[in-house]
């Protein structure tokens, strides 16, 4: 570890790791006090953060796990006098006809269409296109895209709802270019929400790829060009391999963001018509707050958590490999 940690700490750390109690007598009291104070300083500085995170994230999270094993409902006798029913909620979830499988498939569709194509691929193409533009152009276009991303999700949903619903602007516009007149939110709900999510979220991938692309040394690309590589070969064999980590990080983060996305779909289609856009997050909400089966809803939340945990694990492992967490050894 070459980084500065705590000066004077290195000498003491051997003692701390060894048999501290036996050696304390050998240390002068003043030095001991200073070291204890330093230790306490660290804990004190971290404590408020831990308290807030554990109280408002950790504790409810544990309750989510616990409630998923009960039969709690929003109303009725089981609202207050609920019982533990083991894994019955999960058995019901994974039984055929629960709608979970459909929801998982819809979530995958949403991921593929809006996150991977609409955000990552589109974001990459855009970043690549703008690589040779002037700083001003890049900044202006970048800002505009970021604004779309920072428009409150519910407002974005509302604007797209207005454009795609009956009599909406886009409906009229598409009709004008020869696409049959239809209410897009009803005839193609998944396409509608995916388009809205692509509009909204492209900025994140664009920013990551822009930063990574501008770090690719120009000499490397020039050298490939001198060797006779065409644009596509330069992209495939030089640029993309250099961007491997960025691509992985981007995919993991937009996967998590999209899986967790609730507001946009909920506000635009409510999961409908019927259950035709009932992605996992909306499915969870429906079970808990529409059919009032709170416990059953938390069980589906746990399924979502488990899927998310896999991607979180990949993300943190990538960061570690990259050396971003190099103190933690």
């Amino acid at each position, binding site marked *: 570890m070459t980084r500065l940690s705590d000066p004077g700490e290195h000498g003491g750390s051997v003692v701390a790791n060894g048999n501290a109690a036996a050696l304390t007598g050998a240390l002068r009291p003043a030095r001991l006090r200073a070291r204890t104070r330093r230790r306490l300083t660290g804990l004190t500085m971290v404590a408020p953060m831990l308290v807030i995170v554990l109280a*408002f994230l950790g504790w409810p999270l544990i309750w989510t796990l616990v409630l998923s094993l009960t039969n709690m409902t929003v109303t009725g006798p089981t609202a207050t006098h609920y019982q533990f029913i083991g894994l019955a909620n999960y058995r019901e979830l994974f039984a055929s006809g629960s709608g979970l499988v459909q929801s998982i498939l819809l979530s995958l569709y949403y991921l593929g269409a809006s996150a991977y194509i609409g955000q990552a691929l589109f974001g990459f193409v855009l970043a690549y296109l703008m690589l040779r533009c002037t700083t001003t152009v890049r900044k202006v276009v970048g800002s505009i895209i*970021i604004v779309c991303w920072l428009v409150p999700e519910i*407002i974005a949903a509302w604007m797209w709802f207005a454009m795609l619903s009956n009599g909406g*602007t886009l409906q009229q516009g598409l009709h004008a270019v020869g696409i049959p007149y239809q209410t897009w939110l009803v005839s193609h709900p998944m396409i509608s929400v995916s388009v809205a999510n692509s509009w909204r979220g492209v900025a994140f991938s664009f920013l990551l790829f822009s*930063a990574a692309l501008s770090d690719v040394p120009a000499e490397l690309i020039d050298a490939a060009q001198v060797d006779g590589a065409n644009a596509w070969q330069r992209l495939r064999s030089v640029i993309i391999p250099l961007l491997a980590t960025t691509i992985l990080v981007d995919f993991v983060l937009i996967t998590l963001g999209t899986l967790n996305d609730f507001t946009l779909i909920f506000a635009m289609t409510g999961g409908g018509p019927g259950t035709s856009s009932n992605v996992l997050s909306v499915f969870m909400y429906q079970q808990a707050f529409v059919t009032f089966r709170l416990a059953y809803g938390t069980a589906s939340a746990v399924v979502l958590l488990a899927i998310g945990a896999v991607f979180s694990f990949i993300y943190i492992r990538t960061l570690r490999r990259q050396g971003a967490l190099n103190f933690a050894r």
Partner: protein
Amino acid sequence: MRKRIGVWARRAAIALVILWSLFPVYWALDTSLMTNAEAQSAPAHFLATQPIFSNYQALFGVGPEAPEAAGGIARSIVNIVVESGGAMLLTLVVAILGAYAFARLRFRLKNLFFYIVLGTLTLPVYATLIPLYRIMTQVGLVNTYLGIILVYASGFMPLAMWIMYNVFLALPPAIEEAAVIDGASMLQRFWKVALPISTPGIAATAIITFLLGWGQFIFPLVLSSTGSTQPLTVVLAALEGRHVVPYTIVNAAAIIAIAIPAVLVFLLNRWIVEGIIAGSVK
């Protein structure tokens, strides 16, 4: 010749992207400048014939068209500022302290604590929504600013800590070492050396947490049942389709909800971008 085609193709593509990105926002802006009659006339007008600002005035209770519900919108604008701002301040102070300790100090269970906080970075937060509502009801924090601010802070903390952690790690160690040689205490080192040279990072974290708060919907929806704490996003969603307030006035309120992030992005673009990069790939 081929090169020139390439240049024009790129310009066309960029123009298309700008048009695509701005159109929905432009549409809301255009509608907010129309009278209700004009907004509902067919075919749709792509440019308000006579731009009016009475919709914005009505939001703040000025003018003959100001409806009852407009008072609720004005209040919700105050609420969203208090809640996003409060969450930003709390998150910033707490996350900076924690991030500095993680980056520079040694203490017991540091790694465990670090991974607890970082692990929640990618948590689908609304998976905690159901029990959270019960807990907040039990401790009496529903319909309070404090409750919403605390919940926001817990959600934004991991990202804020992670950005600030990367900012502190990237500081050249020599500067702080020099201060230590000059006899600075831990606190002085943190307060007088590390913090001042981290201002860009702190600013980035502040803007990002503020904007995260600005966009919240489902948590304030569940945690506030009355207009006293409902932010603009929640109130707007409730107005949609209810026809209690003219459509054009709702558009004006939506434009206000968009305007704040838009102004911040155009003024502080660089810091936002750097913060986002530091918070994801660093």
